[in-house]
């Protein structure tokens, strides 16, 4: 699965995007956040406050309980601060 990171999430993870092999047990965005948190120190730091993280599947905002099965790309990012 293609995962994108933005803003301080990108800085903490240390990359803008990556392809991640996901186990079948990772079914929702919330599952994905928990899974990524366990991938190492930088991820644990990036996702330490998981409830502020927003997600988009294929460039559309989704909630944490959104299923990820048919996603082409999943973006994870902090609350937006444009405008």
């Amino acid at each position: 699965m293609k995962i994108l990171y933005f803003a301080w999430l990108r800085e903490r993870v240390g990359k803008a995007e990556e392809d991640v092999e996901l186990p079948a047990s990772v079914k929702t965005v919330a599952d994905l956040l928990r899974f990524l948190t366990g991938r190492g120190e930088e991820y644990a730091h990036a996702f330490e406050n998981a409830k502020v993280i927003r997600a988009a599947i294929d460039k559309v905002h989704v909630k944490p309980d959104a299923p990820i099965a048919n996603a082409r790309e999943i973006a994870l990012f902090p609350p937006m601060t444009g405008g």
Partner: protein
Amino acid sequence: MMQVRITDQPIDPAAETVALTRGRSDVGALVAFSGICRDSEDSGKITSLTLEHYPGMAEAEISRHIEEAKARWPLLGARIVHRVGRIVPGEVIVFAACTSKHRMAAFEAAEFLMDFLKTRAPFWKKVESAGAENWVEAKEKDDNAAARWERGAKRKAAE
């Protein structure tokens, strides 16, 4: 013409506005908003802002909100231009304009678009101030501003 544009070049509000009215005389009201990089905020002097965005989603999300605005108000046109990259104080961060026959629709739609752009469009600001760089934190008042429009009402709710 494109309703949404994201650019790493300076934004010229006058040039962006002309495109909404040139060659047509059905427009009775134009509301144009410019969001400008200030030289200071609560925490001190600002040297620069750096705007990051999610290419593709940013344009799509803004376009969705323009369609929503057109469904709520009788708009004749709308245009949003958002700057990305490094910006210094005095430069325009975002330009949003709406045209309509009458002023109320143009005012309401422009404010609606800015409220949603602030909270839903995938842009992130980093501020450089006194040599340090920090990501700007989302403001609760921006969430509240967007929430005013949530009830499907044409007019925003009173506070």
